[in-house]
């Protein structure tokens, strides 16, 4: 855990792009969204705008003091009560790992039809992610750049191979079956943006233009999602309604020339993406725990946290009731918004008040 390592803003946003795309690809939309798939496109546009709004408190905290992360800010503003914020974020980052890992477990057990033991796959991935978190942010950032390039190449291949098969009649007018899909998808998209909280934890370690990075990251994510959804709906039509993981299904069909049946490669790629995401959030978990446990105890906490992620996500994977709850739960969205926006907003307001009171006392 080399906290003083510095990464470039571009590396941070490559990591965040991979993190965001992994959850979008492995989450099971058919359980949460019942209407027309086309309505996801306006939902993505709304989420794109909302993400910019949600990131504002963290961005302004960053502008105030570029050397302090969210936890440092909370200790500075709340004194010893900053411990509560650090504990909250520690739990939050572990929950993000559990949430993502549960989705991945479900995806793997359906796609690979458990020929390989799910427990062993989970243990292997968590062990790799734990190693990544120990190596520190520089190692994760370098790996994620490679994964990002492969990810973009794979996505471009998908789009190019399916684009000629797009048929106009496969599209449905927006909101044809009501607005339920639109709102549900927008809400899910908001619950899938823990990366904003991650920005708040990592910005002291980043050098470069954050404003430009945030703009390009958010635009890149939603442009990819919109393009993938457009091509998927246009080429496969109602077929995707029968599929649990529509993006994966498209990869199983897509092909150009001899490059066919590439789904196994996509599974490998998405597993790498998950590794980046879990490593990164475990690393953020360590940053939080270090603040109130100290470095040595934080290392032990990292081991315990990783084990918890593995055990709880496996447990949820086998309990479909909890899995369905997680799929489309308002509480997940509220939890995410609390971590990404409400707490940073409170901290921002507190710091403004403190500044005012300091300047008025000087007068």
């Amino acid at each position, binding site marked *: 855990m080399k906290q003083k390592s510095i990464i470039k803003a571009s590396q941070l946003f490559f990591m965040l792009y991979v993190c965001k795309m992994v959850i979008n690809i492995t989450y099971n939309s058919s359980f949460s969204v019942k209407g027309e798939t086309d309505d996801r496109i306006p939902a993505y546009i709304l989420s794109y705008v909302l993400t910019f709004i949600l990131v504002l408190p963290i961005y302004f905290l960053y502008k105030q003091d570029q050397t302090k992360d969210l936890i440092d800010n909370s200790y500075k503003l709340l004194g010893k009560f900053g411990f509560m914020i650090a504990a909250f974020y520690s739990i939050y980052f572990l929950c993000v790992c559990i949430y993502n890992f549960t989705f991945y477990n479900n995806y793997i057990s*359906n*796609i*690979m*039809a458990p*020929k*390989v*033991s799910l427990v*062993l*796959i989970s*243990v*292997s*991935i968590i*062990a*790799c992610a734990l190693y990544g978190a120990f190596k520190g942010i520089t190692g994760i950032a370098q790996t994620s750049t490679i994964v990002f390039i492969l990810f973009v190449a794979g996505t471009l291949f998908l789009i190019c191979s399916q684009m000629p098969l797009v*048929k*106009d*009649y*496969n*599209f*449905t*007018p927006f909101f*044809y079956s009501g607005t339920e899909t639109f709102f549900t998808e927008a809400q899910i998209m908001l619950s899938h943006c823990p990366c904003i909280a991650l920005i708040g934890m990592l910005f002291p370690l980043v050098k470069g233009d954050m404003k430009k990075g945030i703009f390009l990251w958010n635009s890149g994510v939603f442009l990819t999602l919109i393009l993938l959804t457009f091509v998927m709906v246009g080429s*496969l*039509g*109602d*077929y995707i*309604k*029968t*599929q649990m993981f529509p993006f994966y*299904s498209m990869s*199983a*069909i897509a*092909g150009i020339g001899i490059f*066919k*049946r590439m789904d196994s490669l996509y599974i490998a790629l998405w597993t790498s993406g998950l590794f980046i995401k879990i490593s990164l959030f475990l690393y953020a978990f360590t940053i939080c725990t270090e603040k109130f446990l100290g470095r040595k105890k934080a290392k032990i906490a990292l081991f315990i946290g990783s084990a918890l992620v593995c055990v709880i996500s496996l447990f949820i994977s086998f309990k479909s009731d909890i899995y369905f709850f997680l799929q489309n739960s308002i509480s997940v969205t509220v939890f995410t918004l609390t971590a990404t926006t409400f707490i940073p907003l409170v901290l921002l307001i507190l710091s403004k008040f403190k500044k005012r009171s300091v300047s008025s006392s000087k007068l």
Partner: protein
Amino acid sequence: MFVALFSGCSGENKLHEKIIIKGVGVDLYDGNIEVTMHVFDSENSVSDGKGKIIVISSTGKTVLDAFNNLSKKTGKEPLYSQNLVLIIGKECAQNGINAIMDFFIRYYEVRPSVSVFVSDTTAKDILKCRYDGFLITCEEISALSFMGDFNASGKSADVTEVVNDLCGDITDPAVMALKVTADEQGQRPETSGTAIFNKDKLAGFLNTSESKGFMLLKGNIKGGTFVLDLNNSLGTATITFNDVTAEYSFDTSEEKLKIKIDIFAQLNLYALDNSEQRHLPNTHIDYIEELSNIKLKEYAVCAIEKSVKEYNSDSLNLGKRLRLYETDYFKEIQNNHRSCLSSAVYEINVQSQIKNIGQEMGP
């Protein structure tokens, strides 16, 4: 991590303990499902590539039950991932294909890019064809599907297209029809046109020239020929399709729905049986284009008469087009849109353009 993944190999059947399915035929037999398969015989394989395939049949209450019963005969586990074709017998198709397709949607091992055919007799007849003493392989049968767009004699379809058409009860599938032709050397399957469905039940067949019209209306012809009698000194001309597009517009203002279809056909002229003049004057080309318009319109009219009016089918995806372009009108007629389409007034305009003339500059 690699070692952990080896657990997938334990307790699994080896390749020689599996029957590798290359093609599947489904028939109705005595109220049950009879599945006929081309399977790769790994134990008795020969080096020339032929003779490795054997034909096995099995019956059961459902498709999966029949597959399962196969293992009782062979003592081997079926492997579906190498399957290339799904051939449905006529009687089985008339009975409905939803139950059959469900297996091909749900089962994780089957590929969505499998080509789907309907036999004008039984699927078993097609899969048992032998020519020159050798079984016609599923690679050869699958090639008929790939050539469908290039010889314009039957509409090819794979599982994704069929499922897309079956979902939502708006459109109906259309797949390539096969028949068995025989000569002194043996039997081989041949494209006999297109099988048209009403919902999930086979409504009837289009012959090869009606299929040409059907594919013109679908706008997916990439090759194929038709012969024009030029009624003058030029004799007959053989025209090749280069590219075809079809545009639809709807007029819902009158009592009866009016559907205008504009077909744009780019053609090549590569064979003129009485071309004393090596270089065709423009007047001749205009004349050939005019005759082509008439001929192609005849094909299209025949296809509409049969598929839409006689079979009461929406395999041209008119319902989905109406949903997209005339949404309010479609909502009104959604429950009986097939009868609205069969009573609609169709206006077909064909605009041909000779693009290439061999050994001459194009017009």
